């Protein structure tokens, strides 16, 4: 096991985020959302980003995918700066982002269609991923005919279908119930750490989820979002094989992250109270 981890850590840095800052102008007022965010991701690693609501996690993912320009800083993907969405990055959106006029199958085929994959192959690939996320039999349903959790799975299948090297996931399991969520965490790990190796950036609010899934966790402060700490998760690699949640290291990390998030929320509320009085 130790040996396996070592080989992983010698992989190259596929993704470098260097000094990203971003602000928005809202009602004539400038709101600093991200401030000097830097971290890296080794090829094949699983990196979670965790931080209080509104700290700019979604914005950060959009910048990494080249959908939004940062005010300063840059994103390097395989050493090249990202200026528009790279073909080898897949995005799973927080609000699913399904095209409502397309059926489940057509949604999963979307990326392939844009790439001009021939219809037969397109259909075959889509069917494989629909099966993988457990939506067999729902191929011809429209998004509004599905539950939130099912829609999220369509979003996941669509991102996997383009066979990305890097998977950006924005709270992809937020609308699943507890059991399904744990099931999906396990299956996701099996996919990105086994069957279809990928580098994954995973935004979540869920501490256990972050520890269970990640090689590294990027802790972000409340807005303006800064990197507070990057935590290495020193747990066995094939985590689905044992009850990792009872591991002493798991419990230690959970406590540590929980303390940090609590301090962030308290700080934010106090800040708001003060500005309210002023």
């Amino acid at each position: 096991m130790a040996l396996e981890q070592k080989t992983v850590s010698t992989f190259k840095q596929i993704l470098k985020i260097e000094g990203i800052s971003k602000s928005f102008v809202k009602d004539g007022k400038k709101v600093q959302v991200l401030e000097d965010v830097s971290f890296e991701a080794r090829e094949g690693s699983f990196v979670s980003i965790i931080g209080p609501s509104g700290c700019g996690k979604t914005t950060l993912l959009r910048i990494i995918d080249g959908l939004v320009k940062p005010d300063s800083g840059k994103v390097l993907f395989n050493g090249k700066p990202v200026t528009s969405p790279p073909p080898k990055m897949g995005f799973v959106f927080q609000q699913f982002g399904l095209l409502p006029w397309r059926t489940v199958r057509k949604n999963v085929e979307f990326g392939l269609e844009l790439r001009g994959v021939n219809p037969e192959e397109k259909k075959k690939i889509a069917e494989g991923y629909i099966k993988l996320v457990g939506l067999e039999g729902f191929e011809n349903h429209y998004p509004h005919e599905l539950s939130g959790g099912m829609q999220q799975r369509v979003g996941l299948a669509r991102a996997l279908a383009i066979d990305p090297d890097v998977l950006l996931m924005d709270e992809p399991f937020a609308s699943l119930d507890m059991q399904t969520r744990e099931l999906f965490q396990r299956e996701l790990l099996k996919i990105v750490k086994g069957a279809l190796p990928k580098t994954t950036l995973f935004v979540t609010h869920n501490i256990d989820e972050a520890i269970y899934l990640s090689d590294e966790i990027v802790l972000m402060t409340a807005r303006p979002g800064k990197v507070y700490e990057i935590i290495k998760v020193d747990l066995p690699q094939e985590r689905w094989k044992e009850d990792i949640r009872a591991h002493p290291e798991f419990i230690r990390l959970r406590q540590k992250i929980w303390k940090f998030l609590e301090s962030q929320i308290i700080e934010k509320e106090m800040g708001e109270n003060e500005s309210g009085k002023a």
Partner: protein
Amino acid sequence: MNLKSLKRKWERTKVERRNLVAQEVIVEQRESWIDLNTIQAKVIFTIVSILLFGAIWELAAKLINNHVILPTPISSFKALYLLIQNKIPLGAAGVGSFESMLLQTLEITAIGFLLSSAVGIPVGYLIGRWRAAEAIIDPWINALYAIPMVALIPLLYFGSGSLIPVSVFDYQGDLLPDVLVSFIMTVFTIIINTYQGVRLVSNSLVEVGKAFGASENQLTRHVVIPAALPDIVAGMRLGLGRALLGAIIAEALLSTNGLGYTMLAFQSILNTPYMVATIMVIAFIGFVLLQTPKLIERRLFKWKETERIKRGGNE
């Protein structure tokens, strides 16, 4: 760890997942003492409504007792029957055959509508999508839309002959001014609906397209147009009605044939039953023009229809 064994594991958990899912998609069924969902119920309501209207009309005609002001339904239908049989009353100057008036009105409506769609949809798309285009074109649309279009008709009548060579449209007659009136009555409705539809396409959908590598062209084809299509088609449906209205107005004011002209010709000889009969023909065309696209829309936008508000006893 290969894909196959992965899939096998999925199969195993599939049943439990399927169960979860099955609960989610059960359609709620409503019970009431009278089932308003059936086709029969709808037909009955429609018939009752028509009979009620006929009764009120008959009663009013009886009370007024003057067939020039208001003919009875029966004499109007009789006139309709005769009109369709090409039995035109004496003195109705220049009224052509039923087919010829019907065809002319339909032709003006169709060309006016097609022309409006061909111009209105691209223009609406441009100003909906690009701020620069909006800044250039939108003020003109607002200004033109505010003018009562009927006021432009004399201008068109004199202008069209000399400014646009009639040979462009290759009409044997002089339908060009009529078509232009129909076009002007229609095109703004189509532009404005397309514009609204495109403008309100959510940015997050456009971002999804971009994230999956869509080019500008692909964004238009695969995201913006499909998202705006319900509004575009709704605009076209309204446009059909406007095109017919434009055709009737143009014929009444400019032409010597067509249903619009015929309607006024009957009025001028005080033959109200025939006039009402002509109006019935126009109403019937309007009804068909507005109903047919509705059926198409319902099929085309199944994905949207079920999202819509549920109306009592109708869904």
